[in-house]
Structures are given as structure tokens and as C-alpha cells.
């Protein structure tokens, strides 16, 4: 039988392309994910643990006590070449040409060259006090002189100057963007207030391994409350904190990889069904000449094994390539997860090979069993003409319902209790149930869609409708593969749209203004408003007046006056923000008892002999609010206390620049004024969701592509099985074009039904998911991005149509004589 197996493989290699492709894509996906994860980890290790990676040993004081006295003792060890105490402090520094001072974290440059870890973008490292190397974030250039202000614990300020000698490249360090860094020699660090070191970095004498040094140091420090680790260990420990998030991402990616593998499994099973159906006669002939059922099965499984191994190997290579491409792409950009080069762990390769081969074998099991049921006589008689009636298993139905119903109940409960931890397992359960039940549910829907199509599409559409439901099991398997991909994709699209609109609406309500400029002592300078209006990126501003007003209790109270029309034009949402009407005062809840008013009560405000009768509205926190006109009728000289700014909807980088410009203008006009706002927060949420959506949709797109290969396969099978029938149709007057149309309709029916069902299911899952995740956070704004959802249906259907092209070409070549020749 082995000779037959290899002869089969040689002869029919081309037939295996579809399943090979499915395995390659799925395995590539799995391996790519694992490799990217490992790459992220090692990149982060390099970046975050940069100061440890090439350090032999790191000593850390566990109780925060000084390690200064230990430096000499350790340095005298034979295996130790040099010791560098890590000194840390922080200063305010102003860079020439920039308004205001910035916060700089100060670290040390070791004396020993081996312990200098900083990578320079330009310039050199400092080697004497008065020199400093800064990170790129500090936005200083080599040669700049920084004015450094150090405030000690008693509040005394000392000012000194330092010349920038170099700019340090912190590469992928995820914390690099937060604050600027400065690196100075230890003496300078001490004069800037660095405390005694709690960390020592140690270089080994040439020839001594790190473990040996670690042991020596640990022995010397026995009894002290310190932690002694090798540099590698220390780096890992530090990186773990940073990559926590990246590991979550890997888990998410692996979930999608699992989806891809499952879909690939369905496709492979279909492919083998196609291959074996094409060979029914061949297999029957083998049985005729004496092959046992077991030998036939072994030959089929052997074929699956070889296919699985070969395509998994290709898949592993493809995955590594994919990871390399992603890494190369990301390296140049400002990614939150740093990547540089790639590292390929052995387990990723092995996992890829195992997953691909096993899935192929498992997927081939059912077709192999079917193959053994081929009767020897099948070699001698034409294929049965009666439509196949497969009975959907009762077991499948029961298991499907057992999964679906509790799953749905769990989801409902999860939404009601606003708990994603309850809804998620419910979603998984119910989806598994849906996949099992699809076998029963999909064919009737396809049949119904077929009847509809038959009305418009003429004879080819009617025939296609009949054909599409002839083998319900196969149609269901094909549609299910696509259904899974489309469901998950649309769940993501709808879910993230809802998340976005909920989050944005929440932010808008909570922080209706993009930017608030506020003075902490006295009114803002007049004319600031006009200055800010001219800043590039500012759309308009609204002034909020402020003045002291006496309430019914006679106490002066800082009161705001809002120009309702102007404020309305600046605010993004008035949902949570209550504005006063003329003749109304907004009284914060805490103040109402003191003023002795309830909601709707009347009260009189006074100031310097002027009186104003108003209605109270008790709402919110903060200070009392009047309309600007009312406040000025009471206090004609009221100054501007706040300026509300609305920015243009530019990209986040541009908005950050706008905020920088606003800060500069405000700092110049009024050093005591503050600039706050959520504009950047809003953008960050948008950006994160966009990236997430893009990545996830891309990944699920792979599942959809694999599923479409399945659609092509199923049609190829139809073409093979219905050769005689297609010949008959051609003989009876079906043109080639109509025959291609027939196959196209079949593809559109299967793919279209899967896409529509998938979008409906996915939409529901997306909304349920978003509701259960977000409802603890406030009101949910359900959003369905109709355009994208419609695009999913159209794309899946059109892709199904494309998948029919090759089988249809083949069918169109069927000679009419085939009908008679049998």
C-alpha cells in the first residue's frame, strides 16, 4: 500500500494545494504569534533591562538601606572587576528656547567602561561634573546649557548649569516617553541630591562567569538584607513588569490563532472529502483487487500525515517570515510594544509542526472512515444519482442545544449583572453550540435563500439553489467555516464601535471641554482669550467669569458666570453638564444646606449693595454658577476665571503640539495659570481602539481567507461529482456562461448566507460583549457601524464568488458528451 500512497501523492500533489494552503496559513499564524511574543520579550529585555543585560551581577538592598559601605569590600573580590553604585535623583531643568522647566529623572554614568550601558544617538557620555547626557524626550541638543533647579527636602532651591554632551537612545524602553532622563557622573548626581545607592552593578573580571561572581558576592554579603542576582535575572525581573501587557496581547493573538486552526481544520476535512470523492472509483478499485478497509484507511491517513508535515513545515517558515515582516514594520514606528529583530524559540517551531500535523490528521479521520465504506462495486457502477440525504446526528443536536441554551442564559445574566466574567464563558459556550447546530440550521436557510434567488436569477439560480442543499452536511461545513470567521470579525467591529461610542460619550459628558485654562490666583489676563484664539489648532474659546458673591448666609462665595451660548459652542456634550438659565443659579449640593435652599427655591444674592433674585437649582459639585449676564449685573467688574477651548479634530500628534503651544502662550501671559484637558485622552482611546481593531480584523481576516478556500473546495467537489449532470445541462442547452453562473450562484448562496448569519450573530455577540464589559462604567451607547458591517457581508460574498471562478472554469470545460459517456 505504501507504493500506492506515494504514487498517489506524486500524481495528485496539485490536488492537495488547497489543504496545504489552509495548513500553511493556520500554522504560519500560530508560529508568527509565538515568535512575535518571544521577540517582544527579548526586545523589552534589551530595552528595559539595558543597564543589567551586560552586567554580571546586580546587588539590590532589600530594605532600602545604603550599600555605599559595601562597594569597596565587593571591589576587592578577585572575580569582580568593577562596581558601580546606581545613584538616582530628579531635577527641574529648563532647556534653552522652551518655556517652563521640565522634570528630569537623573541616573548615573558608571566610571568603568564595562558598566556604561547607555547607547548614544549623538555626542558622548559626560565624564565630569557640569556635563550631562539626556534622553530624546528632553528635546535638548548637544551643546545646550541646561539650567537645573534642585529642590531639597527642606524646600531650598539650588540652581546650577550643565552642558549637554550627548543624547541617549533609550530605544524600545516603553517608559522612555514619560519623563526626560539625564545621565551624569556620580559626583554630579550626589551634588544634585542623589541619596546613597541601594543598587550596585558589578562587572566580572575576564574569565569569571556571572554565576561564580554572584556566588562570591553573595558569600561576601552573607547576613545582609540584600538580593544578589545575575544581570540576566535582574533584567528578566524588570522586563516581566513591562511585558505583562504584551503577554495579554499574546493570549488574545493565540485565541485568534486557535480560531484560524479550527477553521483550517474544517477546510482540511472538506478538502480531503473532495480528494476522496474524486477518487471513489480508484479506492473502490483498490478494494476490488484485494485491499482491506484498513489498508485503504491507512493510505488515506498516510497521505494526511505527509501533507500535514510538509505544509506545517512551510507554515513554520511562513510564520517566522511573517513575524520578521511585522517586526521590521513596527521597528520604524512609534509602537507601544517595542520590537527589534526576531528571536525564534524552539517551542514555537515544534508547536507549529505539531498543531499543523495533528489538525490535518484529525481533519482527515472522518473522510478516511468514509473512504473505507466505499464498496468495491462502486468501481463498476456509475455514481448514485439520487440526492444524498444525510441525517444530522441527534447527538449533535442535543449537544448543540445543551451548549447553546445555558450559554445564552449566562450571557443574559452577564449583561444584567454587568459582568464580563460571566458573559464571556456564556459567549464561548453558546458559540460552540451555534457551530454544532449550524449543520442543521444552515441548509434550510440556504434553501430559503435559494428559493428567493431562483425568482430573480432564472434557471441557473434555481438549479444552484437545489445543488447547494443536496449535501447538507457539506454545505453546512463550508458555511460554518466562513460563519465562524465572519461572526468573530463582526463581533469585533460592532463591539469596538460600541466601546468607542460609549467611551467617547462618557468622556464628552464628563469632560465636555477639550482644554480648560484656569487661573489659581485672580482673574486671567485680559487679551489671553484673543491670543489663544489665534493659536493654530484652537477652534474657539469661551470665557467663564468669576467673582465673589454673597449668598443668603452672608458669606462670600466664589461664583462663576457662564455665557451659555458661547459655552455651548465649545462643549462637546451637554449631557452631564448643566448650564444655568437667566434668573437661575446652580447651587452645588454641599452648599444648599448652608444657603438654606432646596431645588426650585428662591433666594437673593448680594454684592456691594447690588441684589439679584434668582431660582436655585441644586445640582452637582463645585461652585455656584450664574449666567454671565446675571453675574455681571451683580458684579460689573467680574474677571475671567476660566477659558474653555475647543480644538480642531486633528490627529493626536497635532493635538499634542497644539496643547504645547497653548501651554507656552499661557505660561508667558500668566505663569500661575494651569492648562488641563482630556483632548489627548480621547485621542488615545481612539488610537488604541483603532490599532486593536485593525490588528484583530486582520487576524480574523485570515480565518475568513482560509474559509473561502473551503468554499472553492466544496465547489470543486460539486464539479467533480456532477460532471455527468453538468454535461447533461450543456447538452440540453446550458451555455458555458450559464454553467459558470450556476456555480457562481451556488457560491454566492453559501457564502452570502454564511456572511449574513455571521454578521447577525457577530453583531449580537459584539453588543452583548460590549454591554457586559462597559455597563459598570456608565450608560451604554450601542453603535452598529452599518457601513463596515455591510462591507463584511459584501466582501465575504464577493470573495465566495471569486472562489467559484476556478471550479467554474473547470465545469465549463465539461463536454456535453460527458452526459452520455457517464
Amino acid at each position, binding site marked *: 500500500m505504501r507504493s500506492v500512497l506515494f504514487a498517489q501523492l506524486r500524481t495528485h500533489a496539485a490536488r492537495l494545494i488547497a489543504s496545504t494552503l489552509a495548513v500553511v496559513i493556520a500554522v504560519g499564524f500560530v508560529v508568527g504569534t509565538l515568535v512575535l511574543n518571544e521577540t517582544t520579550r527579548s526586545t523589552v529585555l534589551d530595552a528595559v533591562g539595558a543597564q543589567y543585560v551586560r552586567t554580571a551581577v546586580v546587588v539590590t538592598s532589600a530594605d532600602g538601606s545604603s550599600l555605599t559601605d559595601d562597594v569597596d569590600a565587593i571591589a576587592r573580590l578577585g572575580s569582580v572587576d568593577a562596581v558601580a553604585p546606581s545613584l538616582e535623583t530628579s531635577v527641574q531643568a529648563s532647556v534653552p528656547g522652551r518655556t517652563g522647566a521640565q522634570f528630569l529623572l537623573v541616573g548615573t554614568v558608571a566610571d568603568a567602561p564595562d558598566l556604561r550601558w547607555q547607547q548614544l544617538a549623538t555626542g558622548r557620555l559626560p565624564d565630569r561634573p557640569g556635563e550631562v547626557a539626556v534622553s530624546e524626550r528632553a528635546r535638548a541638543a548637544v551643546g545646550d546649557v541646561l539650567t537645573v533647579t534642585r529642590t531639597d527636602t527642606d524646600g531650598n532651591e539650588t540652581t546650577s548649569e550643565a552642558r549637554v554632551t550627548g543624547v541617549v537612545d533609550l530605544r524600545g524602553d516603553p517608559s522612555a516617553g514619560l519623563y526626560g532622563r539625564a545621565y551624569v557622573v556620580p559626583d554630579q548626581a550626589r551634588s544634585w541630591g542623589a541619596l546613597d545607592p541601594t543598587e550596585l552593578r558589578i562587572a566580572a573580571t575576564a574569565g569569571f562567569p556571572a554565576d561564580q561572581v554572584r556566588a562570591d558576592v553573595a558569600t561576601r554579603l552573607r547576613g545582609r538584607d540584600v538580593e544578589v542576582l545575575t544581570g540576566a535575572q535582574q533584567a528578566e525581573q524588570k522586563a516581566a513588569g513591562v511585558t505583562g501587557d504584551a503577554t495579554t496581547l499574546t493570549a488574545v493573538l493565540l485565541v485568534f490563532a486557535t480560531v484560524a486552526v479550527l477553521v483550517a481544520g474544517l477546510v482540511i476535512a472538506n478538502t480531503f472529502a473532495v480528494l476522496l470523492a474524486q477518487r471513489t472509483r480508484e479506492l473502490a478499485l483498490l478494494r476490488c483487487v484485494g485491499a482491506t478497509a484498513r489498508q485503504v484507511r491507512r493510505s488515506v491517513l498516510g497521505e494526511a500525515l505527509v501533507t500535514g508535515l510538509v505544509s506545517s513545515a512551510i507554515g513554520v517558515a511562513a510564520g517566522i517570515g511573517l513575524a520578521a515582516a511585522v517586526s521590521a514594520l513596527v521597528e520604524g514606528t512609534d509602537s507601544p510594544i517595542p520590537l527589534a529583530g526576531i528571536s525564534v524559540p524552539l517551542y514555537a517551531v515544534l508547536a507549529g509542526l505539531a498543531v499543523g500535523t495533528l489538525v490535518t490528521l484529525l481533519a482527515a479521520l472522518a473522510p478516511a472512515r468514509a473512504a473505507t465504506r466505499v464498496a468495491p462495486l462502486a468501481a463498476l457502477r456509475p455514481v448514485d444519482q*439520487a440526492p444524498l440525504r444525510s441525517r444530522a446526528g441527534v447527538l449533535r443536536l442535543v449537544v448543540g442545544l445543551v451548549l447553546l441554551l445555558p450559554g445564552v442564559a449566562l450571557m443574559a445574566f452577564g449583561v444584567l449583572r454587568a459582568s464580563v466574567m460571566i458573559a464571556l464563558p456564556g459567549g464561548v459556550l453558546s458559540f460552540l453550540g451555534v457551530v454544532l447546530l449550524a449543520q442543521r440550521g444552515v441548509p434550510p436557510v440556504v434553501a430559503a435563500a435559494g428559493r428567493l434567488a431562483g425568482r430573480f436569477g432564472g434557471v441557473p439560480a434555481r438549479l444552484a439553489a*437545489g445543488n447547494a442543499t443536496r449535501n447538507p452536511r457539506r454545505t453546512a461545513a463550508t458555511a460554518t467555516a466562513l460563519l465562524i470567521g465572519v461572526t468573530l470579525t463582526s463581533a469585533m467591529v460592532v463591539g469596538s464601535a460600541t466601546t468607542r461610542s460609549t467611551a467617547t460619550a462618557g468622556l464628552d459628558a464628563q469632560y465636555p471641554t477639550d482644554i480648560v485654562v484656569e487661573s489659581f490666583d485672580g482673574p486671567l489676563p485680559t487679551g489671553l482669550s484673543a491670543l489663544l484664539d489665534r493659536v493654530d489648532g484652537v477652534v474657539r474659546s469661551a470665557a467663564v467669569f468669576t467673582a465673589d458673591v454673597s449668598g443668603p448666609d452672608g458669606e462670600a462665595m466664589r461664583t462663576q458666570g457662564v455665557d451659555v451660548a458661547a459655552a455651548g459652542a465649545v462643549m462637546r456634550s451637554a449631557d452631564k453638564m448643566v448650564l444655568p438659565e437667566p434668573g437661575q443659579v446652580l447651587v452645588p449640593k454641599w452648599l444648599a444646606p448652608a444657603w438654606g435652599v432646596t431645588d426650585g427655591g428662591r433666594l437673593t444674592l448680594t454684592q456691594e449693595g447690588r441684589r439679584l433674585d434668582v431660582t436655585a437649582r441644586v445640582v452637582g459639585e463645585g461652585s455656584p454658577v450664574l449666567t454671565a449676564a446675571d453675574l455681571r449685573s451683580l458684579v460689573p467688574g467680574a474677571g475671567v476665571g476660566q477659558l474653555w477651548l475647543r480644538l480642531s479634530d486633528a490627529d493626536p500628534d497635532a493635538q499634542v503640539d497644539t496643547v504645547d503651544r497653548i501651554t507656552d502662550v499661557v505660561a508667558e501671559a500668566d505663569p500661575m495659570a494651569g492648562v488641563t484637558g482630556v483632548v489627548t485622552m480621547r485621542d488615545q482611546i481612539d488610537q488604541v481602539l483603532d490599532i486593536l481593531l485593525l490588528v484583530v480584523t486582520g487576524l480574523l481576516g485570515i480565518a475568513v481567507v482560509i474559509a473561502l478556500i473551503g468554499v472553492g473546495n466544496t465547489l470543486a467537489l460539486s464539479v467533480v461529482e456532477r460532471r455527468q449532470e453538468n454535461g*447533461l445541462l450543456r*447538452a440540453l442547452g446550458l451555455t458555458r456562461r450559464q454553467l459558470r453562473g450556476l456555480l457562481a450562484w451556488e457560491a454566492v448562496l453559501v457564502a452570502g448566507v454564511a456572511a449574513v448569519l455571521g454578521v447577525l450573530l457577530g453583531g449580537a455577540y459584539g453588543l452583548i460583549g460590549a454591554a457586559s464589559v462597559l455597563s459598570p462604567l456608565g450608560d451604554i451607547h450601542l453603535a452598529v457601524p452599518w457601513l463596515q458591517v455591510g462591507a463584511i457581508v459584501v466582501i465575504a460574498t464577493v470573495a465566495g464568488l471569486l472562489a467559484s471562478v476556478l471550479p467554474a472554469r473547470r465545469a465549463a470545460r465539461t463536454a*456535453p458528451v460527458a452526459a*452520455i459517456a457517464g
Partner: protein
Amino acid sequence: MSVPVMTVPGEPPAPWATAAVRAAGLRKTYGSGETAVHALAGVDVAFAGGEFTAIMGPSGSGKSTLMHCLAGLDTATEGQVWLGGTELTRLRDDDLTRLRRQRIGFVFQSFNLLPVLDARENIELPMQLAGLRPDRAWLDAVIARLGLRERLGHRPHELSGGQQQRVAIARALLPRPDVVFADEPTGNLDSCSGAEVLGLLRSSVKETGQTVVMVTHDPTAAAYADRVVLLADGRLAGELIAPTAESVLDALRDLGA
């Protein structure tokens, strides 16, 4: 032992000008060079309108190939085929397909109905492919004549072999084709159903003037025809007018079958 009438191969037989279908110098060769097989080695033949003709010959004589070429199902290597005034051998695939569905009817050995369509849909299929509405009166007449009224809503697998073949005949007759080609129409039927099917073909010729060309190797079936054309080794080997089962058998024996 004597064959009543025999024509010399190569000479235009039958009334050439009024023929419903005719072929001239028809050759069909598979392969090339040394291994070439000549399924048809130069056939000139004509079939008069309103006549029931049987094509007979031993296995491998080329009778099926001849029918495929005459019906535009297969392309000839050389020679011409006319359906009335149309030369099939010059048509492109699409025109040929359109011609098939409007002017030619088929009855096959293995019935060849579409399993997804019921009897009525199968009968109307060629008309619908052509985008035509069947003439109701004619449809009723055909269905009545073939005794299918009770079976119209059944799928092929719910019908007996004889019934399936009657559906196939109805399908062939419905568009009122210039000619109906029948390929071993009784090959898969018991003798009783077979006789019924042949009687129906016979009566459609007699009553409506339908031209029928039938390929068969069964002398009894051939006896239903007005004329039998004999084929051997891809060449015309003679013909019989008003054949009987015995005369056909004798003629075949002479061919060495």
C-alpha cells in the same frame, strides 16, 4: 439472408435536399500518427424529416460518435453536419448550445434527469434555459400522451425507470425540435417499459411528424424505426427500409457482429 435495399457508401442516400439532418465526409479521429483511432472514417448520411431512423452497428462501429457529431455534442475532426439549412460544424460553442436547446431534443440511456428538479421542471428545463415559455396546449398534449400527469411533482428518484425515460422524452419533445436524438433509450429498461418508450417515440413520428434518430444495438428496438442505417468500423455499411427484428439481425450478422 438478403438485405432488401442497400445503397453504396459515399453516394448521397435518401432525399438529400429535404433531409432534416445530414452529414458529409464526417471524420472523427482520436490521437494522431501511429496510434490514431478513426472512430468515424468518412461518413455521408442524411435523415429525412418526419422519419424514425435507427443507427445500428457492432460495438466500436462509431454509432455513438456519429450521433454525438450529428447532435452537436461533439466536434468532428473533418467534414460537415447540417441541421436543416444550418451548418453545425461552423458554429461557435455558444451558438451551438443555443441551437441544441431550441432545435434538438435528447433522450439518453441513463435517463439523465436533474435530481434537484421535479418532473415538470425537468420537462420545461430546455425551454427555460432558452428563456422561452412552453406552449400550454402543447405541454398538456405531450404530458397526456406520455401519461405523466400524475407524476409531475415527483423528483426523478421517486420515479421508476420507465417513468423517468418518459419524462426525458417529454423534455425532448416539448420545444418541438427539428430532430430528437435517442441514445440507447431502452438500454436501462425492462422489455415492457422499453416497448412502451419505443411505442411513444414511434407515435410521435407518426402523429406529429417528429424526426427521430435513435442509436441502438437492440434489433427489436430498431424494428420500430422506418429505416435502419448500419455502421461498421466508422463507415456506413448499408441501410434497411422498413426493418423487422429478423432482417436487422441478419444484416448485423453479415457485418460480422
